[in-house]
């Protein structure tokens, strides 16, 4: 069984490209276009091993999502913040994220960060 990553991101092109690239790396990928969709998805299909989270999204921002998520699941799954916002590092700290990466990012750097933070299977 492969490890599962949830990408929460409103940019359809980034969602499409990242899914394809992460699947090539052997991960199972789930996607949600905003925080609300992500929360519903988590209720239905359980926790992934890692969440890649965009911050500025319509309907429910990454920040709002993280607050709800941490309250419901108590940091059970590492979050990597993936944002084009200027204050990315602070935002990541605020929500207790495992790490952050600024857009545009080098793919190798993202893969390395995922590798270092992703939960082992069966936890």
């Amino acid at each position: 069984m492969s490890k599962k990553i949830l990408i929460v991101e409103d940019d359809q092109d980034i969602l499409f490209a990242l899914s394809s690239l992460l699947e090539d790396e052997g991960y199972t990928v789930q996607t949600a276009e905003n925080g609300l969709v992500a929360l519903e998805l988590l209720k239905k299909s359980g926790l992934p091993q890692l969440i890649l989270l965009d911050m500025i999204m319509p309907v429910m921002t990454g920040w709002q999502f993280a607050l709800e998520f941490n309250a419901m699941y108590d940091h059970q799954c590492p979050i990597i913040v993936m944002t084009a916002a200027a204050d990315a590092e602070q935002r990541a700290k605020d929500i207790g994220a495992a790490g952050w990466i600024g857009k545009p990012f080098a793919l190798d750097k993202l893969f390395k960060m995922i590798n270092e933070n992703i939960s082992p299977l069966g936890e």
Partner: protein
Amino acid sequence: MSTDEEKNKSEVLLKDAAEKAAVLLKVAADKAAILPLDAAKKAAILLRDAAEKAALLPRDSVEKMTFLLNDATKNAIIILKEEAESVAASKIKFLDIAAHELRNPIASISLLLRVAEKQIEKAETLDADILARLRLPVDRLVRLVVDLLDMSKLERGQLSLVPVKTDMGSLISQCVEDFRMQAPNRNFVIFKPDLPIEMDVDPLRIHQVLANFLDNAVKYSIEGAIDISLAVMPSAVRVSVTDRGPGIPEEKKQSLFTIFSRGNLDSTDHDGGLGLGLSICKGIIDLHNGSIGVESEAGKGSTFYFELPIMNEKV
């Protein structure tokens, strides 16, 4: 004149001067809001004028007036400081949004290119879908960069017009035709006189303004016809675009055409761009010695218009 009469007269004068100073300060503060860079200078001139007027008052009033002016100056400084801070905050916010708007399409392009490279490595072919997907963020970047360059030229006073004798009716029809293709499901209705209306304008720039109005009308009204009208008034030609969208609240109207104060600077809407469009439009119409504005009532749609003077000698 009795002492009482003198006292009364001096009080009236003092009250009058204080009221005038208040008006001047209000004007200074308003100017500060519009022209933050020059504001301090302008406020200083206005205060000096007020002081000169105060010097003409009876001697016993002068002391009181000086006190009032000192007080007013302190208040003016507070107002200017707050305004400067708010402008600085807006600029930072604008830069954040600009960076955000630029970084997202670059991230898309970079990732999509990687997907394309992988496809070619694996199968030696490329899905047409990838190329179509690349087109969108590239177009978005081009639009942003063009807007930033226009704004920068306007701010430095380096945007120059290339005026040509132009039939306004044909210009409008041509611009609307472009939009019919871009938004085929929308109903564009043109109202214009049958006779040609020739004016000395920069047709590309006027086209840009009208396209911006039409783009906004399509973006902010989900349905309903969009009316484009060309009307000849006694001293000006008026072009307007009316949509049947949600309208614009009174408090947002003022700032629509001002740089750094986009109505939805806080919005998370990716397609919102930088909000430079209408500021650029205002710059272009100003260069034509015309005027630009919006009429709108919440819930009843909006009419964006510009008016170009018929005797347009200066352009």
